[in-house]
């Protein structure tokens, strides 16, 4: 089925999220929609899926104009969506999830699952998925859950499939498998819209590429374009994708972690007997697919996890079992992975956020009173130093862009006297300009002799920053390898395979 | 008549036209509007002559309720009825205000003074402090306080010369009802429970329980009163004066302990007792309080063995009438068996079910109490 979008314009108040976007996806074609976060890709797909009504423009399927009042209409017309966050019920089986919303019932309102099971088997046989229709979703690996989403869309006879950032949660190997599935689907005549901001994947699988920036189409490209060409289209200028850094100046071990284990609130072991050390003046990157224990590991370092065993020592002093306050006071700087949830208070001003983790003593507090004068001066300095684009230090942090919010967090954490710096997903969701800024500050921090831990699920970032790389898989460190380890090896390690020759340090 | 009909028809047409021209009006609203407008088609009354309606009196009786409000099926309501009855006869319109909480009393009384009331009736012991304070500050206004002696300093004298306490010695009436209940009971268990544990409530329960004891002494029986213990002054209370699950549960508990006569004391809580009796399916009789519930609650009249009467209505209308004719006096009114301020109601449907000897005994008891040969006292009895 051929999909055509003509002159789609979608506004939210004064903001134009999509400005006169036109796009054609031929039958059996994989069409990549490339753009930075916030470029308007998701808005466009929500228009296509009937979630938003566009102010202007038409949606055509096989040259017939469509009117979608909701996702139901879009589904009936043959459009299916594989969401970034899976829309599956974890305690239901595969078959139950596939029929959810289109249940067929027998006499007396009993659910007829046999048809659903047959459908699941038929589709998985066609694509070689090997999925048990009676397996519970919560027991399936993430990659398989995504296939259930695909089956669900296909079972509604979707002729156009939209993949919204499908690889964000996948290992490199799972990503490769998904690419193969997308190819198969396209060959069987399904049209595919592939939304992503990852250049490598686009070049690997797309037939055609449309690049969106600030709500408008800025150009088409063929898969043969280079990364640099695509990136400059995305951000509107030439971008340096590598970070310039010198060899690390090692100044001896600073942080030593031994046999660390974490048990979470559901009584699951999420970090399992992990040991590593970080030297002053180096960046240790912790790589791995999201959800393999990195989050809990950093939280354990900060004292945010409750059931932690093993030992954590910073400069010879134990940290485990102490309060967050004590650990921060010991000189640990922390950039949490969920900036808006854990790093900032959206309704607080920039100035207030800058003193957030120093609310109990000098210099921001004297005798229980806030030192507002000092705070304002401090905020003005940091806004200038970290180039925080704002309307002043009293502006609410929630009204800043993601990049500027992250600069506030960095400014706060780096303005204390640090003995260890932990940055979790420091560039997630940021534009390329901000990524450069954050990376530069991280390397500067390293060069000033502070041990740095960077946790990232982005292989590009890991490779760009790391002096050494620890790869986590299912709560364990599979291996610690040098920063120049080939991507292929890292990919295999992220899938749980041990490094060919694991070494424990430099 | 024809003329009137023509007007009505024109009026209806007009209404319909108005509606049809306003298409935006929602159907439901239009229906409502039609009904209201049709109702509005009545004839205007002739302009009234104002000169003959004004009463030639400056007398203005007023009343403040306690937090129960005037619809409490208890003393607020009875007092309210008494006030309206007497005011109607005098041809004056009283001012009545309800209190929502105990912090309102002072303001309500003060506002009535500001409105120029000449007699302010305050209902319930809760208002005693506010009444005394206002009475001392406004000696030209008269006050009547129901169910309290207005004796805050406990010196056995009314604290202000312009307050008339309206008190009721209901213990002897309760005594008679208790005797009757014991005589009627087949299971040998009678039960009672109250709203809040306050003197005007427990006085009923004291008299009732003592009456049962008296029956046992005279007839050598062992009828038991449950829900109230006179000696220790402890018993079963719902905690408030509202019908509801609390009251239902208390009644249910008494029924479960085999009681076949119930005395719920405290405004509308008896309504839940009726529900409990009906749901138990047992043959259980009730004793009402304040008014003759056989008369005031005809739907359930077959349940009432008798009622302990406390004629607040009469007391209030008497004081209003006296005050209106310029003969207010501040001596306390005490309702007794003798002056028929308290008493028990006829047995009505139960006339045949209560043993004749018991009925005779009750008449004798009444005479005995009046002539002083039998004394009925309760810790809650009004002090004189």
């Amino acid at each position, binding site marked *: 089925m051929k999909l055509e979008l003509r002159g789609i314009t979608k506004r939210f108040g004064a903001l134009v999220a999509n400005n006169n976007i036109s796009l054609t996806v031929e039958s059996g074609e994989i069409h990549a929609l490339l753009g930075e976060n916030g470029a308007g890709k998701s808005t466009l797909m929500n228009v296509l899926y009937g979630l938003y009504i566009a102010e202007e423009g038409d949606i055509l399927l096989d040259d017939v104009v469509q009117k979608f009042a909701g996702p139901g209409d879009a589904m009936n017309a043959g459009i299916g969506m594989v969401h970034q966050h899976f829309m599956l019920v974890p305690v239901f089986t595969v078959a139950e999830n596939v029929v959810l919303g289109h249940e067929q019932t027998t006499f007396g309102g009993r659910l007829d699952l046999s048809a659903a099971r047959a459908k699941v088997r038929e589709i998985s046989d066609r694509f070689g998925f090997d999925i048990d229709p009676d397996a519970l979703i919560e027991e399936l690996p993430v990659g398989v859950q995504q296939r259930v989403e695909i089956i669900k869309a296909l079972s509604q006879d979707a002729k156009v499939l939209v993949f919204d950032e499908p690889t964000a949660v996948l290992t490199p190997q799972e990503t490769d498998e998904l690419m193969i599935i997308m190819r198969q689907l396209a060959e069987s005549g399904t049209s595919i819209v592939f939304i992503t901001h990852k250049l490598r994947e686009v070049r690997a699988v797309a037939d055609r590429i449309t690049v969106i920036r*600030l709500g408008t189409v800025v150009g088409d490209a063929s898969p043969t374009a280079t990364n640099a060409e695509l990136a400059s289209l995305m951000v509107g200028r030439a971008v340096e994708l590598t970070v310039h850094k010198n060899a690390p100046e090692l100044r001896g071990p600073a942080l030593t972690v031994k046999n660390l284990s974490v048990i979470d609130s559901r009584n699951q072991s999420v970090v399992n007997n992990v040991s590593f050390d970080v030297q002053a003046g180096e960046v240790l990157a912790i790589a791995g697919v999201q959800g393999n224990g990195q989050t809990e590991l950093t939280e354990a370092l900060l004292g945010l996890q409750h059931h932690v065993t093993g030992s954590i020592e910073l400069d010879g002093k134990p940290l485990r079992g102490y309060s967050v306050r004590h650990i921060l006071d010991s000189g640990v700087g922390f950039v949490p992975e969920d900036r808006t949830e854990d*790093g900032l208070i*959206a309704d607080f001003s920039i100035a207030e956020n800058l003193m*957030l983790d120093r609310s109990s003593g000098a210099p921001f507090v004297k005798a*229980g009173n806030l030192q507002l004068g000092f705070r304002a001066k401090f905020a003005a300095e940091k806004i200038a130093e970290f180039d925080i684009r704002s309307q002043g230090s009293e502006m609410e942090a929630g009204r800043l862009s993601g990049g*500027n919010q992250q600069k506030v967090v960095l400014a706060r954490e780096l303005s204390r006297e640090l003995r260890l710096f932990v940055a979790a997903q420091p560039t997630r969701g940021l*534009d390329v300009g901000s990524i450069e800024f954050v990376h530069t500050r991280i390397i500067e921090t390293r060069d000033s002799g502070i041990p740095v831990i960077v946790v990232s699920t982005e292989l590009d970032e890991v490779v760009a920053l790391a002096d050494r790389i620890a790869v986590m898989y299912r709560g364990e460190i599979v291996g610690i390898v040098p920063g120049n380890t080939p991507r292929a090896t890292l990919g295999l390690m992220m899938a749980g395979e041990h490094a060919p020759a694991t070494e424990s340090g430099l | 008549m024809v003329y009137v009909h023509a007007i009505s028809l024109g009026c209806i047409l007009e209404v319909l036209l108005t509606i049809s021209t306003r298409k935006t009006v929602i159907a439901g609203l239009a229906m409502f509007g039609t009904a209201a407008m049709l109702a509005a088609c009545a004839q205007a009354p002739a302009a009234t002559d104002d000169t003959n309606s004004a009463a030639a009196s400056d007398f203005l009786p007023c009343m403040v309720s306690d937090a129960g409000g005037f619809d409490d099926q208890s003393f607020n309501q009875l007092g309210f009825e008494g006030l309206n009855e007497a005011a109607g006869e005098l041809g004056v319109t009283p001012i009545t205000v309800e209190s*929502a909480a105990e*912090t309102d009393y002072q303001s309500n009384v003060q*506002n009535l003074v500001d409105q120029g009331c000449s007699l302010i009736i305050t209902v319930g012991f809760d208002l005693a402090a506010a009444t005394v304070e206002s009475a001392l500050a406004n000696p030209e206004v008269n006050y009547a306080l129901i169910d309290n002696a207005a004796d805050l300093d406990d010196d056995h004298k009314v604290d202000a010369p312009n307050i008339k306490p309206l008190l009721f010695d209901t213990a002897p009436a309760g005594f008679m009802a208790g005797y009757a209940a014991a005589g009627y009971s087949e299971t040998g268990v009678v039960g009672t429970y109250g709203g809040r544990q306050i003197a005007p409530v427990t006085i009923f329960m004291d008299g009732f329980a003592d009456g049962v004891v008296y029956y046992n002494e005279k007839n050598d029986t062992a009828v038991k009163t449950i829900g109230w213990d006179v000696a220790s002054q402890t018993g079963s209370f719902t905690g408030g004066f509202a019908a509801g699950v609390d009251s239902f549960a208390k009644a249910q508990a008494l029924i479960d302990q085999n009681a076949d006569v119930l005395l719920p004391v405290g405004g509308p809580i008896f309504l839940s007792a009726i529900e409990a009796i009906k749901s138990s399916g047992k043959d259980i009789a009730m004793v009402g309080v304040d008014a003759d519930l056989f008369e005031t609650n005809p739907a359930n009249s077959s349940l009432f063995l008798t009622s302990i009467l406390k004629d607040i209505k009469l007391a209030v209308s008497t004081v209003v009438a006296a005050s209106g004719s310029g003969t207010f006096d501040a001596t306390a009114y005490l309702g007794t068996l003798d002056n028929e301020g308290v008493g028990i109601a006829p047995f009505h449907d139960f006339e045949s079910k209560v043993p004749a000897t018991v009925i005779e005994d009750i008449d004798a008891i009444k005479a005995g109490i009046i002539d002083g040969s039998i004394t009925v006292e309760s810790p809650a009895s009004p002090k004189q």
Partner: protein
Amino acid sequence: MSATTTTAPAGRDSRKDGSERWTQTLRDITGGSAMISVLAVLFALVVGAILIAFTNERVQETAGYFFSRPTDLLRAVWDAVAGAYSALFQGSIYNFRATNFLTAIRPMTETLTFATPLIAAGLGVGLAFRVGMFNIGGRGQMLIAAGAAGWVAFAVELPAGIHLIVAILAGLLGGAIWGGIVGLLKARTGAHEVIVTIMLNFVALYLIQFLLRTPGALQAPGSNNPKTPAMAATAVFPDLFGPRYNLHAGFLTVVAATIFVWWLLSRSNLGFQFRAVGQNPSAARVAGINVKNVYLYAMAISGALVGLAGINQVLGTVTTGFGSGIDAGIGFDAITVALLGRSKPWGIFAAGILFGAFKAGGFAMQAAEGVPIDIVVVVQALIVLFIAAPPLVRAMFHLPTPGTSRKPTIRAVKTRQTNEVVAK
């Protein structure tokens, strides 16, 4: 509904769980603009006027013959509404009919007298709001504080002045403990404060009722009624303007409390931590703030402030002894006051005075015009309704939705910045 009410796109908030949404809703309700508060009050008064007209007998009567003489109905409506609201005004601010100035301003002092406990309790509830907690336990905290302060006031003998201070401190401590239990349970066991506060209301009520029936505890000696003796003269708030007016020095304590809460929230580091936990508990925790202690301290201070309302009731308003109804529903009215005051100290102060005026004027309205006192309660309830449903008020007055006015500025900032980066 007009286009202005279109809600902002949900964006990627779909993963928010229930508790987050609850906190967000609480934040939206308490954080709306002051304009909404003013309009909510105005609109509630309009609806109140309609109800007054509907319940007026003369209006009902004249409506019967509206078509043959419509002026009668209109005049009756005008008389009813104007009479009621003028009585409300004269009962709460200035009585024109009074013979001299000193009597004429008496209603204003009445308003302040009734506002006193409302402000105190409103500050307590508002403080809890700012920490992200819903303190519905005002009744229990007031009763315990009243019991503690009252007992000291009638049972202990101390010199004048010191006696009053000790009684106040006892009451504050009582309220703080009763509120602190809630904070402790929430911090240690995760028990939801709404459930705990409601349950503690019952515990306090029956505890006080029990003590009121127990000779030697709170019951007046020699009395059979569940009521305390009168407070000793040494422990009673002195009248501010002499015995002619009911206004007592308790009003000064709530002015002090308002200043204290203002200082606490906007100038102290404890208040900074309170607000941080209220806005985003997880960020506060990551920033090293001890969230559990904050819950405990906040609920204890909240309880003490609500307790101050109970103290004012027994040492100022009803000094002749009190029963278990002494809270007079103020613990619940305080929620309205805190919402109307947007949980800001001076906003609560103003809202408390407004509600005090409603209360004082309500008595006059009932006495002078026979308007049921329930109308005032309905108006207060409508105010809450309109505040809790800001989109409704916005739609009625065609105000812009915050989502549409704010979103573009965010994007505008972002756009501008990106452009600058590009230009660099």
